[in-house]
């Protein structure tokens, strides 16, 4: 069954290209792993210690990277979870509260406890922005160390307690190194799986384009909780291993500096990368060792080197390694939509009866933005929404897509009620949209941006994605295939691997449409898609929109370009001061006296 599906749905060129791309992406990691495995042949116990430390730090940072580098949350205080893990493992292995557990069970328990704590520490992120959240994580870091200090009967207080000593063969320097390296490699693999799955793309979307993320059905709380659990577990296991490595832990081992090291490793590595933060972690573990012979001045030199490194590569390590995007793009690119691709993309028909809005009233404070609006968008039609600035056009789109909750009125889509508010549920109902200012993920490739639109079509869960199980791979292939089709349809397929922030404005408009097509929408909302386009491009846009509607999609088009509106719309509604001024076919509107004098004539 599964095989058949794949063969049917994947174009023949797709599979080999993807695996080649994955392989070259994995190459630097394999090289680092190979070098790490050679270390026992050339290094002594000191290098084993430093390499073990780097592995342990990376286990934590690999999880933290998803939070800081991908989701963009400033979690500065992750030493809190590291400490919780270290103490949980040590206390359980020592048998201070319960009968002593075997070391590996204690290590596992450390992961579980820290995962739970990870959610507690992370939850404020759903309510607090950047610095405020950063500060709460630091608060947790302080709380954890002070509790460790005060709770002497369990944690040993100021004089601490021994870390768990692992059984053979992990009781030797190189044995422990092997274990930590293995776990680090496992974590790298798991984070990479997550990062390059729909979950990873969704995380980046919440970071760089949270409004678009919501419109594409990405529920931030669910997503973040999954990541906090993973990062917490990784931090906990890292903490437990740290306790083994140190042989002995006291509260003063869990310093603010250590917490910053974790955070900085991600920053210096670069956002949305895995290799960058990995190299960052190695760098930050090694730099102080290189400066160590200077004794008292070593920390000074370490800080100076950090500063120099950032000044030399202000984009982080990842930008430095991004060779692909340094290639010059040709200046005279042309967007050539291929509406033929829509056939495959929009093949399966949705049972559609269209959108009905009745008596919608929305006011902000004393200002009424929409005043009793009735609107109906039929499937397979292009419906134009025009009116002067401030007449409520974009506001209407925002009501439909759930960002604004009107005080009165109701909406139905395809025969069932469309609840007001709740933008995150719109994608599931087949409502897709573009924005007046394109909301894209500048740091991700064009293809990745479009794939974000297909996030909710995935069937595999977070764990399946993390372990790269077959269902997740299938999801990925299906989403990638649709995204390529969508790009072909809008005419951007030649640019699929280019970072989106290198595109021209007009290309971004088409990119957003491609993203909107991913779900096979029953209603597509376009907010001034022609703004900033050349006359030639507007013409192609018109043809594309028309072709989309011909596949049964209802299109609601907010636009200022009268020519485009009159050329492609089946129905037009004219708004003024939040009220319907006129409605009808283009021909009728053209003849409407008030419209002509108030709007078109001008």
């Amino acid at each position, binding site marked *: 069954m599964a095989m058949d599906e794949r063969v049917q749905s994947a174009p023949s060129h797709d599979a080999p290209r993807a695996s080649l791309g994955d392989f070259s992406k994995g190459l630097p990691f394999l090289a680092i792993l190979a070098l790490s495995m050679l270390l026992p042949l050339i290094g002594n116990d000191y290098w084993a210690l430093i390499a073990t430390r780097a592995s342990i730090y990376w286990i934590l940072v690999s999880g933290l990277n998803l939070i800081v580098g991908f989701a*963009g949350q*400033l979690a*500065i205080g992750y030493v809190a979870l590291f400490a919780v893990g270290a103490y949980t493992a040590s206390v359980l292995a020592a048998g201070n509260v319960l009968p002593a557990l075997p070391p590996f069970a204690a290590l596992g328990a450390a992961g579980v406890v820290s995962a739970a704590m990870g959610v507690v520490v992370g939850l*404020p992120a759903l*309510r*607090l*922005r950047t*610095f*405020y959240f950063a*500060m*709460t994580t*630091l*608060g*947790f870091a*302080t*709380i954890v160390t*002070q*509790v460790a*200090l*005060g709770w002497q009967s369990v944690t040993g207080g100021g004089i601490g307690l021994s870390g768990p000593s692992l059984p053979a063969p992990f009781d030797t320097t190189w044995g422990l190194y092997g274990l930590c390296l293995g776990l680090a490699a496992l974590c790298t693999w798991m984070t990479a799986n997550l990062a390059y799955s729909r979950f990873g793309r969704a995380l980046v979307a919440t970071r*760089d384009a*949270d*409004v678009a993320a919501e419109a594409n059905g990405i529920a931030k709380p669910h997503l973040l909780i999954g990541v906090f659990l993973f990062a917490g577990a990784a931090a906990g296991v890292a903490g437990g291993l740290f306790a083994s490595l140190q042989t002995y832990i006291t509260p003063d081992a869990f310093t*603010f500096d250590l917490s*910053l090291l974790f*955070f*900085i490793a991600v*920053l*210096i590595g*670069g*956002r949305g990368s895995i290799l960058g933060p990995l190299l960052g972690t190695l760098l930050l573990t090694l730099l102080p060792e290189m400066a160590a012979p200077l004794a*008292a*001045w070593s*920390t*000074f030199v*370490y*800080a*100076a080197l*950090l*500063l120099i490194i*950032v*000044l030399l590569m*202000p*984009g*982080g390590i990842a930008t430095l390694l991004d060779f692909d995007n340094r290639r010059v793009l040709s200046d005279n690119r042309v967007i050539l939509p291929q509406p033929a691709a829509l056939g495959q993309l929009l093949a399966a028909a949705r049972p559609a009866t269209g959108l009905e809005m009745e008596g919608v009233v929305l006011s902000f404070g004393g200002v009424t933005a929409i005043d009793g609006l009735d609107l109906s968008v039929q499937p397979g039609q292009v419906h134009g929404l025009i009116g002067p600035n401030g007449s409520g056009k974009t506001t209407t789109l*925002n009501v439909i897509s759930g*960002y604004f909750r009107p005080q009165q009125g109701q909406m139905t889509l395809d025969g069932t009620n469309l609840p007001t508010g709740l933008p995150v549920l719109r994608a599931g109902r087949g409502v897709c949209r573009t*924005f007046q200012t394109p909301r894209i993920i500048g740091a991700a490739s064009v293809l990745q941006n479009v794939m974000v639109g297909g996030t909710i079509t995935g069937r595999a869960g977070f764990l399946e994605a993390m372990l790269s199980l077959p269902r997740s791979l299938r999801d990925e292939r299906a989403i990638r295939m649709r995204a390529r089709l969508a790009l072909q349809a809008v005419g951007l397929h030649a640019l699929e691997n280019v970072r989106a922030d290198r595109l021209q404005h007009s290309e971004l408009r088409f990119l957003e449409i491609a993203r909107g097509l991913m779900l096979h929408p029953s209603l597509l909302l376009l907010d001034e898609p022609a703004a900033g386009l050349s006359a030639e491009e507007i013409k192609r846009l018109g043809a594309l929109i028309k072709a989309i509607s011909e596949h049964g999609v209802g299109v609601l088009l907010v636009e200022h370009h009268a020519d485009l509106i009159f050329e492609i719309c089946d129905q037009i509604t004219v708004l003024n001061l939040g009220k319907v001024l006129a409605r009808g076919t283009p021909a009728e509107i053209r003849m409407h006296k008030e419209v002509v004098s108030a709007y078109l004539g001008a």
Partner: protein
Amino acid sequence: MFASIIASGLAMGAIYALIGITYNTMFATSRVMSFTAGQLGMLGGVFGSLLMLRLGLPLVLGLPLTLLLCAGVGIVTEFVAVRPVLKSLDQHLYVLTTLAVALLIQQVTAIEWSTEPQPFPRLFELGRDAWDEKYWLPVATCAVTISALEFLYRRTLIGRAFLAVAEDNFAARALGLPERTLRVASYAMAGAIGALAGFSGGQLLLAFFANGQLLNFYGFIPVALGGLGNNRGAIIGGLALGLFQQAANFTVGGIFASVAVFVLFIVVLLVAPQGLFGAPASRRV
């Protein structure tokens, strides 16, 4: 007993508030949270002690020189740690650069000054017990500073230019305001405000290299409580923090005082996510 808790609480609160204002002043023109804020406070105390006790300068020379030196540190920070990373603010690399500068300052102080707290001179020999100058000096300095800032921002042309840059960087540049110069000026000003925090609190905190991290940490709380960029909020947040912290020190002891402070802080933030006096979030769509 209560008098001493309130006096020291208000004094520490005023110092935290001034550091909070230091953060805000740098943030306003650059959108950067600079972790040098606490180190500037530390340097205020160390320079004060160095100039007045070791070199024997009188207050009328010692204070302006301290302010000048710290303003210089502020300007250097802008050039070295802020300007190069402004282009990619959302990568938050300024956390790294400003922390590196903070670490440089701290290490040089540890080695060249001392790792033990050093005395800070009495300035006026005024007041005793709860009314001792070491308690009211930071409070008075805080009041004077905020008044001067309010005057600057609301009554003078250059102050309005600051506000314009803080409000909308691009628009301000489009208006022809010297945005870059104003940013450097704000870093100099932040240096001086940080120095004032350390100088006025010198008798309480002593001239001690480790004060930098402490002030960095606790100076951030008034910023968050008061709302980013809101100086009046920072003062109320700072004073509340100082009083609560000293009361907690007394009631639950030193180990759990910081736990109490942070539990309360997190709860307050969750109830008021923009800080107590912050502007509500702007509309997203």
